[in-house]
């Protein structure tokens, strides 16, 4: 801890300024001006973040500083505008600003022809601001502000095409589902306040120093679980993942930035940040791990049956987040963060690539209408290839190392988790390569396949129409010819591709001849059961090598299946699906989870709020009270108006009556006696 001031507040505020400028004056700006402003401030933020990170590492982390004025002071509870730079937040800040900047650049090209250009970039900058606030906050409360802020930004951006009902609904869905998680987060914070009377990280964690892990179910476990509920909401874990796939209604860069790279990882970051709490709550950890692996496999299976390219990626995001959750659950926070970083790279790359594809096909999102794009859009093809192999977990790409780390730590913790993880890895590589083959190989089926109406894809044509309309105005490309994207879109793809290739090398575990830099870098910021003195299983390199082999094998198997089904014998899938039709439809319909929710929760809730709260409480009781008050006063006024006849004698009569009353009072009760 040192007292030199890094002015960390500048990092989040820069995008805020950009957002303000664009939001307030952007309407009058030209698109060039708007994008210039947005990029300038984002880049500045990135640059300053880099500088701050270097300074911080030189000065020695963690670096904790607060703005000179208080924010919330209630009694002896004090929440400052404080910023906290340690290894963890350094990584997060760099990822957020870096990837964010790249996606900004990409968006300039992608959104060039959409309406509300300035609105889009204003929202995007706003998101950056809140996200940076989230990761830089030095207390849970400020973190929560960022937490809610990114929720808001995500809502705004999902509903960016607010003329489209499905988009607006998706926005609302995301917002509401997140509310549930936020509720848990809030309760967790209340517990923290109750226990430590402070929400500052250092205060809480110092308060926790020397506390041994809870054996039973105690306050810490409850806190951890509540925080975890928040995390499941934000990071789209079972059972609150349902909002993420629908969030794909937003523009693709948004999906890349918010719903793949950064925001959805906030939950992971929060758990890692709260590692001192979680590591002292073994039961909570178990539950986290369980939820994580459940989400992973669940989403993976669902991903297999999707035909909308972005939805496939959405489900893969969910399942990757499940990985990270699992990592946190087995107290391998560093592995989780590691995977978070690499995932940020390759998932952003995937989304942007998909966006490029969609852009190329003039808004088409259904993979069954794609194919054979390999030659038509080579750059996109190659970067997508890199990304696909990365996520599938082929060495030496980054995805391999991070995922392998997670699986290894999972095995050390509980072999079942490991098994599920491996199966998930297999499925992942399968559906990713399915996407890959369907998109880039074979021949273009644009417009040929007529799609049987699927409930969850009813909106796809709408979006295509919308994007077509958006793309169609005034320029030659559109449905016409499939075309490569402009370089302003491709450049970020290339950079991300390089990152996803090399990004993993910072954390190669010793067993694989590396020196898991990343883990050691993060170690001081995290508290694991080991640091609390739990027994550390002997991890000899050979076994880890074996496990690495197994996961690679899984990836290969997935690749082979995909190759067989979607390249060699494209007719097979239909036969198979025909045979296991029941299962297929169930999977295709995402296990009817949405329907189940709507049946179990939403419909009753709607009914309740409609018939009880709205018609009943609101209209009858509350409105009744208000209107009753109004009408009552009107009635009284009407009554009293009769007194105000303007006739002096009647006034005099009232006066006389009042005098009589007063005199009577004074005679019998008042001073008269």
């Amino acid at each position, binding site marked *: 801890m040192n007292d030199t001031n890094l002015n960390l507040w500048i990092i989040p505020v820069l995008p805020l300024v950009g957002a303000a400028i664009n939001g307030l004056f952007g309407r009058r700006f030209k698109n060039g001006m708007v994008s210039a402003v947005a990029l300038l401030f984002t880049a500045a933020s990135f640059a300053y973040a880099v500088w701050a990170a270097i300074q911080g590492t030189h000065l020695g982390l963690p670096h904790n500083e607060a703005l000179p004025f208080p924010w919330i002071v209630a009694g002896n509870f004090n929440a400052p505008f404080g910023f906290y730079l340690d290894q963890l937040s350094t990584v997060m800040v760099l990822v957020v600003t870096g990837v964010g900047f790249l996606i900004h650049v990409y968006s300039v090209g992608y959104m060039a022809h959409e309406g509300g250009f300035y609105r889009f970039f204003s929202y995007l900058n706003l998101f950056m601001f809140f996200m940076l606030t989230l990761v830089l906050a030095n207390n849970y409360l400020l973190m929560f502000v960022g937490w809610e802020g990114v929720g808001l930004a995500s809502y705004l951006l999902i509903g960016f095409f607010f003329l489209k009902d499905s988009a607006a609904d998706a926005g609302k869905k995301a917002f509401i589902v997140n509310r549930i998680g936020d509720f848990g987060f809030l309760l967790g914070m209340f517990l923290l306040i109750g226990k430590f009377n402070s929400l500052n990280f250092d205060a809480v964690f110092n308060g926790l120093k020397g506390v041994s892990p809870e054996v039973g179910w105690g306050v810490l476990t409850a806190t951890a679980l509540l925080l975890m509920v928040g995390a499941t909401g934000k990071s789209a874990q079972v059972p609150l993942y349902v909002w993420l796939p629908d969030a794909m209604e937003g523009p693709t860069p948004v999906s890349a930035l918010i719903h793949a790279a950064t925001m959805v990882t906030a939950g992971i970051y929060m758990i890692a940040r709260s590692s001192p709490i979680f590591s002292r709550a073994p039961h909570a950890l178990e539950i986290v791990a369980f939820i994580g692996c459940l989400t992973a496999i669940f989403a993976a299976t669902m991903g297999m049956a999707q035909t909308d390219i972005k939805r496939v990626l959405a489900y893969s995001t969910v399942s990757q987040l499940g990985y990270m959750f699992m990592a946190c659950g087995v107290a391998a926070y560093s592995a989780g963060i590691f995977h978070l970083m690499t995932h940020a790279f390759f998932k952003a790359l995937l989304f942007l690539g998909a966006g490029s594809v969609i852009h190329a096909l003039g808004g088409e999102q259904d993979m069954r209408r794609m194919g054979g794009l390999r030659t038509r859009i080579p750059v996109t093809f190659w970067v997508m290839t890199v990304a696909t192999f990365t996520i599938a977990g082929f060495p030496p790409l980054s995805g391999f190392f991070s995922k392998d780390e997670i699986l290894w730590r999972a095995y050390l913790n509980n072999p079942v988790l490991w098994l599920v993880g491996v199966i998930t890895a297999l499925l992942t590589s399968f559906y990713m390569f399915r996407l890959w083959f369907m998109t880039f190989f074979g021949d273009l089926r644009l417009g040929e396949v007529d799609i049987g109406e699927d409930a969850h894809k009813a909106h796809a044509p709408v979006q295509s129409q919308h994007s077509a309309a958006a793309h169609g105005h005034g320029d030659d490309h559109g449905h016409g010819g499939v075309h490569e994207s402009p370089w302003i879109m491709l450049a970020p793809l290339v950079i991300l591709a390089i990152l996803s290739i090399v990004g993993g090398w910072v954390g190669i575990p010793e067993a694989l001849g590396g020196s898991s830099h990343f883990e050691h870098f993060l170690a001081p910021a995290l508290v694991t059961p080991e640091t609390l003195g739990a027994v550390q299983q002997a991890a000899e390199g050979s076994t880890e090598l074996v496990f690495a082999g197994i996961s690679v094998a899984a990836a290969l198997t997935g690749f082979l299946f995909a190759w067989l089904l979607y390249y060699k014998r494209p007719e097979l899938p239909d036969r198979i699906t025909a045979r296991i039709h029941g299962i297929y439809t169930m999977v295709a319909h995402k296990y009817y989870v949405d329907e189940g929710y709507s049946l179990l929760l939403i419909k009753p809730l709607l009914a309740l709020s409609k018939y009880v709260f709205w018609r009943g409480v609101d209209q009858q009781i509350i409105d009744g009270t208000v209107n009753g008050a109004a009408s009552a006063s009107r009635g009284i006024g009407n009554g009293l108006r009769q007194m105000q*006849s*303007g*006739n*002096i*004698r009647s006034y*005099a*009569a009232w006066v*006389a009556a009042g005098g009589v009353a007063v005199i009577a009072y004074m005679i019998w009760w008042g001073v008269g006696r």
Partner: protein
Amino acid sequence: MVPLSWYLVLSAILFCLGVSAFLLKRNIITIFMAIELMLNGVNLSFVAFANHWHQLSGQVFVFFVMVVAAAEAAVGLAIIIAVFRTRETLNVDRVNLLKL
């Protein structure tokens, strides 16, 4: 030897008659007179109590009442004249609107 209460009762009767005159008369000037009547009734009780307590303050207060009554009469009659100019009536039942 007259008990003081006789005087007081007389003043009460005068006052009540004044009140009822105020309530029942239509002519605004008469209503003013009713007010004067009430004041006189009160004055009588003042003087009676002054006699009872052997305190002249009561009589002094009567002077103040008279002064106020005179002032009120002057202003009130001026108002009556103004009202009569605008409405051509002295009947308070016809002077019950704010607008002309």
